[in-house]
């Protein structure tokens, strides 16, 4: 299958996380947080909020394949992917045919997101959208 992908820039790289990534799922929202220590010693957290999640996967580094190793400054967004197609096929059979679901945008509102944390692993999510929030932390000792 042809995979259509685009990069969404992240405010902080994912490669310098010490305590992250932290995943917290409260249906239907997945929160992925990671820390970053800047050159000024200030620790900042970035929060990735995935809305209307249909599926998510975490691959530990040892289980990542080449396709999971993406740049540290971006989230990849797939409009089409094999995994997305498989999940949507099941979703359509279950609830996707309902009028309310169609009014919400139907299957076209869902996308496949991927973010990679060097040394830690890769998170893949199928969701409607992803919001990126920055949090300025305390200056480190």
């Amino acid at each position, binding site marked *: 299958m042809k995979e259509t992908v685009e990069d969404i820039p992240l405010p902080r790289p994912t*490669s310098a996380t*010490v305590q992250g990534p932290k995943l917290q799922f409260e249906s239907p929202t997945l929160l992925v947080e990671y820390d970053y220590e800047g050159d000024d010693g200030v620790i900042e957290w970035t929060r990735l909020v995935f809305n209307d999640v249909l599926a998510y996967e975490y691959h530990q580094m040892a289980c*990542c*394949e*080449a396709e999971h*190793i993406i740049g540290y400054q971006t989230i990849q967004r797939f409009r089409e992917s094999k995994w997305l197609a498989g999940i949507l096929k099941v979703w359509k059979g279950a609830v996707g045919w309902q009028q309310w679901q169609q009014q919400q945008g139907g299957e076209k509102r869902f996308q496949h997101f991927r973010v990679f944390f*060097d*040394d830690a692993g890769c998170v893949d999510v199928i969701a409607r959208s992803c919001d990126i929030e920055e949090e300025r932390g305390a200056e480190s000792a």
Partner: protein
Amino acid sequence: MAEVRFAQKGISEVFRYGEFAGRTIDEVATGLQAGIIAPSQLPIQVIERGGGLYTLNNRSLMALRLAGVVPTIIRNVTGNPTFEAQLTQRLMEIGREVGEDFVPIIRRARQP
């Protein structure tokens, strides 16, 4: 064999996975020095590129270096697409030539 080089801009001080998960680089290095941990318990994977030999296991190599011992188990994974991609991303992040004297910074976990 050429000396194995580090290939990561920074590394967190705590091992995430494996036999030493949750332990710091310093703790493992101390264990190596004391003979409680054998160098063979820290196998490292390497890739040959541009005449250099780069590791993908920077924390393990750091613990070995701090303890003053050399790796005894070295697995060459040159050509493996996943490991090659990982090395490429790491070298891109460093953004300059990585010589044998390059040493990554160690990131310490801090309480909020």
